[in-house]
Every structure is written in C-alpha cells, then in structure tokens.
C-alpha cells in the first residue's frame, strides 16, 4: 500500500536578498550572493524550494581581538594582525562572506576613528572579492560615527551594515539608504520585536529587499532552544504571508559559542568534559548546525574547521533535493 506523505501548503516565501555588488552593479565584488527565497520549512524539499543555500561568513576584526580564545588565535596566527590578510585567509578557508567587526579601539589602545574605519574597509575590499558585512563595535554613538563613514567610503558595494537596534537604527539606515547598502536588524529573541524593527527600518524608506534580520540566539546549552523556537515562529509567519517576517535571517553562532565556558576554558574543568579543542569546535559546530535547521540564512562563524564541518552538513541537507 502506498503511503501518502502529508504535505503542508504554504502561500508565501522568504524574501530574496542579494549581498554585494559587482562592477556592473556599481561595486567591486567578484560576485554577489543571494540568500532567502525558501518556500517551505528548512530542507523539507518535498514541500517547497530552498533556492539559495545557507551561507557561511567568517568573523574578521579590524584589530586583533585580545579577548578571543587562544585556540582561535593559534589557528588564525599572524593573519589576525591585519584585517586584509585575515579576510584573505578567511576566503581561502572557504568563507562565502566576510563579517568585518570594527573594534572599539585600535591595537595600540586608541579609540577607533572614522578615518581608520574607512581605511580598514578599503583594504579589506581590495583584499577579497567576497561580499562584505561591516558592523560597529556595539556602542551606539561609536557605531553611528564609524558606519556612516564606512557607508560613504564603500558607496555602491551593497555592504550589509549594522547593527541596527530598536534604540539605535536611524543613523545607520539613513547612511545605508544614501549609499546603496543593506542593513542588519538585531533584536533580542522575540518574534514581535524582530518584526517591529523591520517595520521601523522599512518606515524610513529602506526597501525590504535590503534588510537581513538577526533574531539573536544563544549557544548550545545557553538558550539555543529559545532562539530556535523564535526563528521557527518567524519562519512559519513568513511562509503564512506575514510580510514583515519574511526577511532572511542572520545569526552569530561563532560569537555565542566562543563566549561560553565549554568552549573558552581549557583548564579547571571536569576531566570528563574531554579534550579542549575538540570540545570547543564541537560547541561552535553544534550550535551552528542547530541554527541551520532553524532556518538561518547567514551564519557567522569564527573557526575555519567549524566552517568546513558545517558546510558538509549543509551539503548533505541540500543534497537530497535531486533524490526527491
């Protein structure tokens, strides 16, 4: 007897967003990347399409981060001394995109400046042909000052600029609008808040085709199930036709995983936690693959080995398409 597989019929789709611009399009990227476009829940190929695979970005800093795990510093080595070299190394490691975070201070402890931010972004753009995201250090006033300069410097590149938060989005959105970039909206793990910020940004005149939303997540064991559920609900709303939830989602499992004890600490933990490096990589990879399943379209990672592993998982998930 033939078994009928029940299928969900969705009326809508995730919006497609294209990152980066080639020389034909007013930028200097070697190619662009489109994310989103799903017409079903993640990887349910029998119910709908996943036209664009989730992409993996690597986290690159404008200045060497002293607080990063020794495991990461060991892996990236000297490349971390220079953002252009680091971005090149990231491209070689297989990144689809560079996620450049401007630091609060320069390596010699001076406050970061708009001039410096411009120079860093210019160098990184020259060093790699990948699409680029540029976000500030996370302090409203500094973010605004640096990102406005970056937007102007990289006019037309369709950078993903951030972070837009409910309390501070107007300056960054205005800069992105004026210089043809995209924005990353970030809200603290809540369906309504995610949606509200997209509305606020859209109300300023930013087309929905230029907004990627970051619903925020937690690391494995640190609230990931809550983050998963928020992303799942956003995706369900999107597929049901709720326009303001149809943005592709970006999440940062690298940042989340590397700040928890299980990844960060090598000594003074129970022996049965196992070998440090393996545990740390597992933590980042498991966090990331869980988020791939929850519908993430862009994942920001820190370790090249994690990137390799997560890519293999995505390949497998995308693979059955031909078999179906």
């Amino acid at each position: 007897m033939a078994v009928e597989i029940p299928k969900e019929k969705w009326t809508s789709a995730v919006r497609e967003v294209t990152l980066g611009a080639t020389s034909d399009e007013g930028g200097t990227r070697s190619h662009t990347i489109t994310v989103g476009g799903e017409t079903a829940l993640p990887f349910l190929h029998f119910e709908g399409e996943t036209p664009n695979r989730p992409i993996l970005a690597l986290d690159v800093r404008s200045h060497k981060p002293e607080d990063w795990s020794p495991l990461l510093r060991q892996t990236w080595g000297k490349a971390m001394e220079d953002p252009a070299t680091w971005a090149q190394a990231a491209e070689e490691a297989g990144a689809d995109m560079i996620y450049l975070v401007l630091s609060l201070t320069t390596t010699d402890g001076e406050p970061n400046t708009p001039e410096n931010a411009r120079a860093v972004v210019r160098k990184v753009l020259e060093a790699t042909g990948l699409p680029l995201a540029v976000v500030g250090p996370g302090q409203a006033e500094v973010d605004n000052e640096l990102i406005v300069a970056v937007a102007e410097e990289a006019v037309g590149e369709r950078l993903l600029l951030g972070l837009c938060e409910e309390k501070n989005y107007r300056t960054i959105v205005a800069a992105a609008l004026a210089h043809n970039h995209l924005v990353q909206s970030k809200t603290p793990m809540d369906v309504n808040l995610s949606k509200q910020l997209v509305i606020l940004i859209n109300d300023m005149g930013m087309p929905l085709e230029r907004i990627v939303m970051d619903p925020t997540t937690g690391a494995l064991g640190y609230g990931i199930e809550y983050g998963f559920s928020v992303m799942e609900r956003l995706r369900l709303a999107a597929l049901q036709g709720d326009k303001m939830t149809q943005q592709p989602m970006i999440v940062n499992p690298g940042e989340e995983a590397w700040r928890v004890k299980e990844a960060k600490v090598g000594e003074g933990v129970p022996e049965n936690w196992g070998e440090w490096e393996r545990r740390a990589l597992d933590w980042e990879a498991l966090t990331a693959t869980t988020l791939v399943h929850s519908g993430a379209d862009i994942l920001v990672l820190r370790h090249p080995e994690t990137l390799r592993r997560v890519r293999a998982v995505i390949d497998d998930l995308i693979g059955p398409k031909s078999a179906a």
Partner: protein
Amino acid sequence: MTNHQVRLQPSNIIVEVPTGTLISEVIHLAGIDISQPCGGQGRCGRCAVILDDESGVRRRSTIRLSAEDLEDGYALACQTVIEGDVTISIPEQERIERRLVTDKSARKVELPFAYDPVTMQSVQAFQIHLSPPTMQDNIDDLSRLQKALADRGYSPIDIPLNVLRRLGTVFRDAKWSPWIVIETPTPPPGPARLIDISVEPIRPIGLALDIGTTTVTAYMVDLTTGQVLNSAAEYNDQINRGEDVISRIIYAEKKDLNELGVLVRQTIDTLLERLKLRTGIPPQGIHKVTVSGNTTMIHLFLGLPPASIRLTPYIPAANDPQSYLAAELALGVNPHASVYCLPGVASYVGADISAGVLACGLADSEVLTLFIDVGTNGETVLGTREWMVTCACSAGPAFEGAGVVDGMRATEGAIEEVWIHSETYEPTIRVIGGAKPRGICGSGLISLLSELFVTGVVDRAGNVKLDLDTPRVRQGEHGPEYIVAWSDETETERDIVLTKVDVNNLMRAKAAIYAGFTVLAESVGVELNDAKQVLVGGAFGQYINVENAIKIGLLPDLPWDRFHFLGNTSVLGSYMALLSHDAFEHTREIAQRMTYIELSADNTFYDAFTAALFLPHTEISRFPSVADIWDQEKRD
C-alpha cells in the same frame, strides 16, 4: 481650466478660483484667518466650515467629522476642494471649539434607577415624638426610646454607648421630639441600630467611595432623595509607597501595613474636608459608607495582610468581606456608620470590577459587550447576560497622569488635548480652565502620543526622533523628549515635556490593556470585532477621545458609535450599592458569575503584550483606520 465663484460668509467676500483649489486656500486668498493647528492634515477638525450645497465641492477626507456633521453640511477646509460655484460659511472659532468639546464634557451624575428610600434604603432619619416623663410615667430615657421605636417596628434595637451618653441631654433639649438616624439590618433578621440622635433635623447622608491604586473618588449622597450632593477625587496618598498594587503589597509585607491604612484614610479625610467645604455637611454627618476598589486596596483599607495576593496561587484573605463600623476602621465619618465593602472576584479582579459591571449594565446585556476599566490595573470583562469572562493586567498609573514627568490629574491647568503641525512640529494645546498649563492629564497624554505618532515625531516604537529639524525635540535630562510648552508659557515657569520614559510608560499601559482584551476574546473564541458595544470606564473614562485612543492602539479599531464612555464605573457601582441593598446583592451575584482568566498562566499574554507595544500595534491590519492615516502621512 474652469474658474468657480466661491462666496464666503459671514463676510460676504467672493473669490474666484480654479477647480481643485482647497477651501483653506480660498479662505486664505480672501484674507481670512482660520485655525489649522494640525497644519492642514485633516486631523484636528478646527477648520470645519459649513457648505450650502454639496455639489460644488469634493471631500478628500472626512475624518474628524461625524455622520451628523456631514448631514449638517460641515466640511474640513483643508480636505475639501472646489469643483463648482458654492457658498461657504465660516463659523466662529468658539463655536467649533464648543462643538469639539461637547462629547467630552463631564456629565452630571444622575440617579441610576428610580429611587425609593423607604423600600431600598437601610438608613432612615426621622423625628420621633416621645411623651415627656412624669411622676406617673417614670421609665428611664432608654426604655422610653426603645418603647417608641418598638411601636414603629424597630425592635430589638442596638444603641451604642456614646449615643446613650447623649440621650438625656438631646431628649430634653429637643423637648422630647429628637431626630434620629436608624439603620435596619441588611439582610434581616438582626437588630436595627441607632446611629445618631440630634436636636436639629438630620438628613441621612451616605458616602460612596472608590479606592483606586492611584486615585480615590468620593460621592456624597443624600439618602432621602438619592441625589449626589457633591463629588471629589484625589491621588491616593499611598502612591509614594509604590505606584502599583504589587509594590504596595511588598511595602505592607516588608515595612508597614498599618501605615498604608493611615495614608488612605488621610486621603479620604482630605476628600471629606473638601466635600464639607462645598456642601456644609461635616464628616460626622455621614451615616453610611460603601467602598469599592481592587482587592489589594480593600485589603489595605481593612488592614488585612495582602501578602498572599502576590504569591501563587494568588489567594486573597477575603473577596467578600462583611460590613464594619466606621469606628473600627478609624474612618473619619460618624463612628456608628456601617461601612460596606463591595465583593470582588479574585486577587486581581476586585470589587471595582463587580461594581463596574453593575454600573455599566453588562450583566444584563443581550449583546456581546466589552467592558474596560482603564486604571492602574486594566481590567476587562467580556460577555453578555449569559456569561462573563474577566482578566486583569498591570497597566501602571500613566493614564491617570502619574508616573509621567509632567503628568497631572484632569483639573485646572491640565493640557487635555494637543494638535501637532505636520511640518513645523509646533503644538497647539487646549488647557482645562483655559489658563496657563501646569501639566498634562490622561486624555492630553493620549492625544499627545497620538499626534507625535501621526506626525512622525516618534517612530512606531515610541522613540523620539532627535534628527528632526525643530527645537521641540531635544536630548533632555531623562533622555530624548518633546517640548509641549516652553517655560514662558507655563504656570510653573518650567518647560512641559514628554520624555522617552513617559512614552514608554504610556506604551506599556496601552499595550497591557489592549493585550488583555485580545487574550480574553481569544480565550472564548470570539473576534473583538463582534463586540457590539465597548463600555469604557476609569478615572478619565468620560474625557477620553476615542479617535486618539484608537490611533495609539489603546482601544480596538471599531466604529466609534460602539464606544460608550461611562467615567468612573467603580464609584458608580459603589453609589448604586449605597442606594439599594438589592443592588449591593447584585454585585455579589455578578462577582460569582464571572469567570476569571489568569494571564500569567502561559505565554499568550506576554506575546500579545509585546505585539501591542508598538504604534498602534505590530499587526497594523488590526487597525485599518489608522493604517489609512499612516499611509497618507508617509506619502505626504
């Protein structure tokens, strides 16, 4: 292009203009000034004119005009264009102002039902004629009174000691025809009680109280006619010990339960003093008291420890306390007056709601009715005469003008309505009493928030846009703020502002209330739109502007004629219970019939709350009338 002749009255000026000219432009061309506080956006209704003939014009928008207005030929000068010859009358500004305020003027409190003091009222006052004692008729004063009262059916009768102490003197001074006040037992049987005796004629007087978390309201009532002699309201002196019921409970638990009782009695004393000034009736002349209020307020008033209200499973000491003597409660009225507390439903749906449901008539309604009590706690009741569900959410005191930097009660000097110009962001304000403003009251805050939203001074999350080109927005001491009145225009000689924190408080208040009734409707599977009437009670209930309240998402987007503003329904219910024992019993029955929905049981309320924490709501499709205005503003 065709030109048309427009005749303007009463000045009788004729202006010739092409098709499509706005009436406001015609008026301007004629050199006449008309007020346009909203900058010609069709929102304020101040530029209304009267047309002699509809055929010469086309209306672009009729918001702010009622069906009746349209019938009378009213049109908004800024929203109506000329398409033919027409005569237009420009009314005097005063007339327009009056027209705008009629729907908001405080109504006189009327008798809620035909009142018969003999059958309904437990407290009676009358003169009694005793036969003077003689050597032959030598029974004592007390027995003489008891005998006379027994003849009138009052037997047995309780006579308090300090009335007994005055008996002899009063009888003799009154030449054996004293006035007495008696309360018959409710419900019988039980002894009647002598409350007071006097040489002078006594009118029996009652006091209906509503003890709100933020505001205490009192009606002084003539128990013979049933009429309200006067009313007064004042902020609850407990506010400094916490703005909401939870912080009051914690204060009572950790610090001083007794102090909170003292504070509320102090507020009541202030009201009694004010009522005495206005009516000449001293507090001791009050013979009966009914008290409504939320469960926590009743607990604090009675001195009951409220701790268990706050903790799961949220059990109050008493939902339906009995009556007590004023003396026991140290209440500053006649010490022998009975004090009746109205029955509540649960820890967070108190006597104020039973009273409100009684007063608004929901319990007898044939149609689906939504009743909202807008106060520090936003309680909602949904139902018909067949069934009622209720819930409560903590809205905070913002709509009562508390917890807002320049908030105040709706009294003289309060800004009660605001219009903001769409291009200059300059406000036009209306102040109660017409004097210099001192602050902003609840309706003013709703109006202000609505205008800030529609003109785009704040974004839909309520953030003040500091990048606007106007001195009216600035980074203030408490964060970004909008200046409603400059210091040289105010009574206090300080700027009157609305800060980001104030906006947040207002947003939370309106979101909590709206979320409450969406959850309630979902819990019984009805659509909010199916509600045939929406009854709005609360301290400011009778002044609120429905259009503004819908714009900010406080009230559901329903046709305006479904809304009825009833004012303070809690004190109204208290008043009804004061007049009639049957009414009091009815509140008890109402309290028992309501099904209480606990909002903290799951995430539904929180989700509805965060969705409502946006202007007007995250789902703008719930507010189609606001979506239209918003789209229009964005296009402009």
